[in-house]
């Protein structure tokens, strides 16, 4: 049974923006909100040089890393070709305006 942990409400994240969720022992998570109010969560690390994706520019369902411009898909964490790499996605849940992250063991 998946355990969910409430993190914040949707309006805590700007449209086409992101927030950082810090974890105690694991790397940070980046929470993204698209123009259509979809929410995605990725590990806050670009597969290239670990740039903080939360600080990138969000367009449609991609984020552009602020360090060297890699474009990462929010849906699957994949870098856009011709770059090759992948960032872990984190299950996220949006209900009644509340965003929750999976709270299993911090395995990501």
């Amino acid at each position, binding site marked *: 049974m998946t355990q969910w*942990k409430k993190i914040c409400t949707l309006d805590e994240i700007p449209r086409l923006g992101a927030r950082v*969720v810090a974890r105690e022992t694991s790397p940070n998570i980046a929470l993204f909100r698209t123009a259509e109010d979809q929410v995605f969560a990725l590990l806050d690390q670009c597969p290239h040089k670990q*740039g*903080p994706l939360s*600080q990138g520019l969000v*367009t449609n369902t991609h984020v552009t890393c602020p360090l060297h411009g890699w474009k990462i898909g929010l849906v699957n964490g994949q870098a856009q070709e*011709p770059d090759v790499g992948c960032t872990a996605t984190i299950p996220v849940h949006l209900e009644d305006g509340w965003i929750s992250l999976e709270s299993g063991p911090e395995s990501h």
Partner: protein
Amino acid sequence: MTAHPPLNSLQPGPIVERTRPKLVMVGNGMAGVRALEELLKLAPDKYDITVFGSEPHPNYNRILLSPVLAGEMTLKEIILNDVDWYEDHGIKLNTSSRVTRIDRVSRQVFSADGRVEKYDRLLLATGSTPFILPIPGHDLPGVLSYRDIADTDAMIEAASRYHHAVVIGGGLLGLEAANGLRQRGMTVTVVHVMPWLMERQLDRPAAELLKKSLEDRGLQFKLGCETSELIRGEDGRVCALRFKDGTTLATELVVMSVGIRPNTALAESAGLFCHRGIVVNDTLQTFDPRIYAVGECVSHRGIAYGLVAPLFEQAKVVANHLAEYGIARYKGSVTSTKLKVTGIDLFSAGQFMGTDDSEDIVLSDPAAGIYKKLVLEGDQLVGAVLYGDTADSAWYMQLLKDARKVTELRPHLLFGQHHLGDSGHKGETQAASLPDHAEICGCNGVCKGTIVKTIKEKGLFTLEEVRQHTKASSSCGSCTGLVEQLLASTVGGAYQPTEGLRQALCGCTDHTHEEVRKAIREEHLLTIPQVMAFLVWKTPNGCATCRPALNYYLISSWPHEARDDPQSRFINERAHANIQKDGTFSVVPRLWGGLTTPTELRAIANAAEKYAVPTLKITGGQRIDLLGVKKKDLPHMWADLAESGLVSGHAYGKSLRTVKTCVGSEHCRFGTQRSMALGVRLEKMLFGMWSPHKVKLAVSGCPRNCAESGIKDVGIIGVDSGYEIYVAGNGGIKTVVAQFLCKIASDDEVLEVVGAFLQLYREQARYLDRTVHWIERVGLDFVKQQVVEDLEQRRALHERLLFALQNASDPWTEIAANPSHLKEFEVMSF
């Protein structure tokens, strides 16, 4: 569960088969397939596509047949789209299938192997066929043309069995064929009817140099010689040529390369109007509106193009119309030529032979093997021939395409742009002469071998593609010229130089920067969604390239009206600090004119201690950088600094950076003007100014120029009688010395001229242009006219700047005081 939109396909419903219109393409070559690629980008699901190709191969890079012939590449390496590509895009590919008939009434095509296909839209890309001299013996065994893989294979095979070859035709393709056969060990004679080689691309002096260097490689030439007959040998193969003058030349292989003819037989049999090609209009439509044509088979405004760059431009246009965008027009192309013979550098473009009204600028150094000729008509460059040194070919091509006034460039036009090799290239400007391991892109550590290999393997044609695949030239851009040269020497005529003035803002739109700005001004657009809707953006919310540009164009066009969109700003401008490689930030308080006080220094020291700042550094702009600050600490640090009156230095923005000053006549025994005071006044006037790119100023109190005014966007040098103003200098990637703008007597006037200059830059430069790039395009004369000579215009510009900067507030204080802005800096916990 993720927060993706609910999928409505949970309950299986009936499968609805959508019938899509059918697009049939006849011909499977580079132009046609490029058109399909462009179409798939715009409207991937619009058509059911069927392709007929008479060759047994999928689309390959015909241009690289010469390296294949020369043994430098293999056939496999030149495939551009393998069969999987067609399959992945749902395209039905019929190879070895020649279309023989079009029925325009029932809208069907019929192939020789019995296939019938209906069409809603038909795209003819039938290419061209080599012209065969109608002389006796032209059909003997051992007589080949040079057009496709089969011809190339036949030549390679012949080279392994025979020793002597003759190439008839001293044009581009003939010389490449001759070189290839020579590389494969044959003795080769080139027979050419004209008095010099490549007469359609070269003038005589350049052609002589070319001939000499080909002779050095072992080729032989018979120029001014017309072949009248090919003689049959005892074995039935060709054994010799007979010329008009009766002399003969023995050979075992003849390659005819005397030109190409558009392949119009099919179109003509269908009753489509043809005249030296299938005649099309500017939308690449034939006289039957359902039928389009693209490539070498086409005659557009009376011209049939045989080089691939124009054909790719056509492909873009035809795709635009097939996708029913209906906005693109093909208006013809200026073509350029490059010979793909390894080690020979040759470029020609435009009307290189000159006309009655033209003038030539010529540099000829036969010993060094260098020849350059530029043809000017009035104040424009109309043609160029370069031999031996083609470093500046891309620049000349751009001047030609843009039809730019070159009057003020004229004195040094022949010596090139001098743009290469400023940083990390050891002054190297000739990519061709570099070894494979030479580092081309210093930022990303990419060497020549890698770039060339990637261009070949991935079938790249544009600078943008090379940037994406290799990262070369994608960071600082100083190696762009070298990368362009590598592209040109690898793919020859297929290389498409930068579009110049007609450069789309980014992949999300076909509109140029200028068109976008014009729309914003004329339509009074105030938000990014408004701009995207009005100009029919292709992506839902743009990309990391266009959004920051649009945001800048909006706030600079409509100050105090258009609202700044933080989410369209790069992180540095959103967080008002510079992101560092570990994700921390750096903080640079403004020290006006580089001056500071004990109170400010104490505040900086206290902040550094309080927030455990690991590194403090004096910057090149006479300020202090606190490096390694955590994002969440930023607002608190700013609040602390603000207590001592320190404000943001905008060290992170496309904005006013610094005004560097020397101590000037306030202290210096040589000083002639009070440079510190003027510097502070300028910096106060310009505080809070956003601009297309960063802006740096300097004020020096005397010509010794301790503030380095010569390499700033605006540099001011005090002289006894006033000030000299220099503009468009650059100390960064490319060191460019600033140009003299004017001399001025009073401090007040300096403020007005500088303000007017920067406002003109703000209004007219493209986003991410430094002042130097902008002035390179519009010319210093124009700028002088606007901000020096036209006093009314100067005043108006200055006033617009002052209006835009009215009540400019300090972003640090603003954020620290506004809780709603603070979220950006807060970290949530799990």
